[in-house]
């Protein structure tokens, strides 16, 4: 437990943000009467940005936050580096209480340990692409040659070699988005905050960048808070996913948990059309071997054996080559469960 706690990089506890002049009144009313988003808007003319959000991100995780437009994703991610002050709640980043940091310490933290990609790029229009990417390093006071080296390297990571001496306005939207990504990577931060970084890209480049990004974050051991409105992307990238609705986090879990066990109808709607083949594993659908009753002609000793951690995709491959049900094994090779063909089909349909 203690180890776990040390490994937590980002943590929000009961964070609330209410926008508007009468935010504190509204907050008090929310606390005492528990009124909802609509009532807050009606009675106080205030907008609930995020409501009672708590989550923690462990070192090396890619934590995806997913939700529809206006659900408060951008607002939430801005709390982590305190671009937005919470109306109430606690925020911890890299073991420090962000709300208690002095302005200097906060700036230091932003400059050295956090990289951020913005939904709307937010490049500096009067600086070249190179100088944009080097901006975080410039703030830190790095030498020019170092800035140039690093920015060149991170531009090539996102596939923008040869564009370093252009201005952002000469680049397409997707290219600008990649400049934003390169800028966040350039400062070599511990924590990456990414607000829909790939949303403006075409599917091919997006996939390519997703792969690149996963490899990179694995290899550089960065902790990432990744915002997206695309569940496929969240599932592809996310170690864990938080689903937001109207400023609240309605479910947090691994992609498999989300897909196999949606917390409510809202989440169920999302996951309905998601392919479960790579998300659901044998151990989820297997029948324990002790409870399995072989039907006529079945002989478990003839069955193919696979690890219980393989996904459905793999199970299908195995099952098509045999008439017997598939037997699953644990790490030491003992038989633990059975997956019949009926059960497999049901698993493909329902994800459980």
């Amino acid at each position, binding site marked *: 437990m203690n180890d776990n706690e040390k490994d937590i990089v980002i943590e929000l506890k009961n964070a609330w943000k209410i926008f508007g002049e009468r935010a504190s009144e509204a907050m008090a009313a929310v606390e005492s009467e528990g009124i909802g988003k609509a009532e807050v808007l009606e009675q106080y003319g205030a907008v609930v940005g995020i409501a009672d959000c708590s989550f923690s991100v462990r070192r090396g995780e890619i934590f995806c936050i997913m939700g529809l437009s206006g659900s408060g994703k951008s607002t939430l991610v801005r709390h982590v*580096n305190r*671009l937005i002050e919470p109306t109430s709640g606690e925020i911890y980043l890299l073991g420090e209480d962000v709300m208690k940091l002095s302005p200097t310490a906060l*700036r*230091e*933290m*932003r*400059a*050295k340990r*956090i990289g*951020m990609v*913005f939904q*709307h*790029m*937010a*490049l*500096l*229009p*009067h600086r070249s692409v190179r100088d944009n990417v080097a*901006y*975080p390093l410039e*703030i*830190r006071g790095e030498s020019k040659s170092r800035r140039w080296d690093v920015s060149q390297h991170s531009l090539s990571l996102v596939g923008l070699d040869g564009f370093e001496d252009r201005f952002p306005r000469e680049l397409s939207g997707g290219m600008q988005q990649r400049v934003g990504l390169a*800028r966040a990577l350039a*400062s070599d931060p511990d924590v990456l*905050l990414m607000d829909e970084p790939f949303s403006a890209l075409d599917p091919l480049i997006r996939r390519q960048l997703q792969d690149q990004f996963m490899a990179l974050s694995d290899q550089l051991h960065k902790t990432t808070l990744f915002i997206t409105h695309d569940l496929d992307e969240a599932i592809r990238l996310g170690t864990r996913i938080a689903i937001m609705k109207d400023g609240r986090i309605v479910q947090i879990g691994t992609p498999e948990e989300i897909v196999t066990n949606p917390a409510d109808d809202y989440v169920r709607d999302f996951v309905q059309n998601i392919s479960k083949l790579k998300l659901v594993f044998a151990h989820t659908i297997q029948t324990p071997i002790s409870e399995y009753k072989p039907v006529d002609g079945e002989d478990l000793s003839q069955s193919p054996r696979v690890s219980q951690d393989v996904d459905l995709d793999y199970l299908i491959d195995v099952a098509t080559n045999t008439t017997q049900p598939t037997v699953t094994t644990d790490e030491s090779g003992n038989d633990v469960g059975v997956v019949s063909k009926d059960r497999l089909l049901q698993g493909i349909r329902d994800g459980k």
Partner: protein
Amino acid sequence: MAENSQPDVTKDIPKIDLSDSIREFSGQNSDYYVDTLSQIQATGENLNLWNKAALLCGPAWCAARGLWNLFWLFTIAELVALVQLGKGIWGDLGASKMAEAEQLTKRAHDLRLEAGVAGVTGDESAESSAEIAMNLEKAAELAIQQAQAAASTWWLYLIAGIVLYVVLRYVLGKFANRLYELQYSAWRLNKKIASGFSMQRLTIALVILVILVPLTLYRFTVSSPVEWLVDVPVDNAYYTNSANALEGWFDRTAEAGKGVFDGITAGAQSVLDAMELLLVDAPWPVVAVFLVVIAWRVASIRVAIFTAASLCYIGFLGLWEASMVSIVLVGAAAFFCILIGIPLGIWFSRSEKAYAVARPVLDLMQTIPPFVYLIPIIAFFGTGRVPGILATIIFAMPPVIRLTALGLRQVPSTVVEAAVAFGATKWRILVGVELPLATPAIMTGVNQTILMSLSMVVIASLIGAKGLGQEVLTALQYVAKGQGILAGLAILFCAMMLDRIVQGRFQRQEDQ
């Protein structure tokens, strides 16, 4: 056929129901307004939706419903109509002609008496006096006829008044609902906009009307209204006393702040001297080459050519020294404007409150005729170049302040946010992000400031600043048209030269 292939998809869109919100907006008589406003929104036209309340009550309706602009517009227009009516009904239309006739008759009568006396004494003038008297009597008769004719036109005024009044009410009744619909739309965005039917507003309006209408009618329709309505009944002493008090205050301040004022003078003087050394005292070929090269390096070859041409004009017409003096004056004024104006602009872009206070002051600086503040400036700083520059600064500084503030406010907040997210300090954000992005606006302000400074050289020369302004002033005194125009053109060329050089630097950056 086309209808079949393209079903009307908009038909099935559910209508939004605004009746609750219109009801909240209109308060009293809400059913009527729900109906009419919905209908206006549906058809985009007024159809024949007469607003009877507006038709009957006119401006009072406008006020009660919170349409204050409309209230004033129609109050004044209806007053005009009522004045015509009043003139027609009880106005003394021939009054002025009648008075004239009376006077003529009286003079004629006097002359006749004189002629009578002269005739008795046997004077020669008797005859001519009698003749003049006769002429005067004829004129008086004519005036009486005209007065009667004028008095008989009363029905014209009456009809004009009635027609105007009816037309006004017609227009108001016809358009009231449409205007009220606009008010409703505005209210949806800003709930502070007046809504509903307010007794309080109605009372205020009635009080205004009760005071305004009778007084105005009286003033315009009665031929000799009481004195206090025509002239504000105040004692002349208020004016003289206030002026004297101010005068005393100026004298005392000038005395008390002598050190400060002298300090300012010395500061400005040193900048002026330095620039003068460079531009006025140096030999003219050196200065000319210097200016052209600067124009070329800082701006472009085109600006350099323009500069050379302008300098030729100035040189050949013998306005060299005067021009250089003016350039120094304007250069120093613009320098101070920018030096003080840009930081002020930055401050005002940050602080809404400071800007709210400063805005009327800036308006004042731009609208007060320079002659007004020349007087205190002379009181504090005497005459010469320095007060000339100060007057120029007061006049020319507002644009650079305003446009700096405006430019900084228009910097996209997303870009600033990104800089914050990367840990930039406020200072770094200002210098590295905000000011560069605001540069086009700031440079427009600088351009305005330079041009306005040059337009002040003539006025500054009134208090002893030399240069081209003085040339123009002399030309004015001797009505020397040619000289004035030549000197005026020289001012223009100096202005353009300065402006192009300063702008050129940034133009070039933008072209990159």
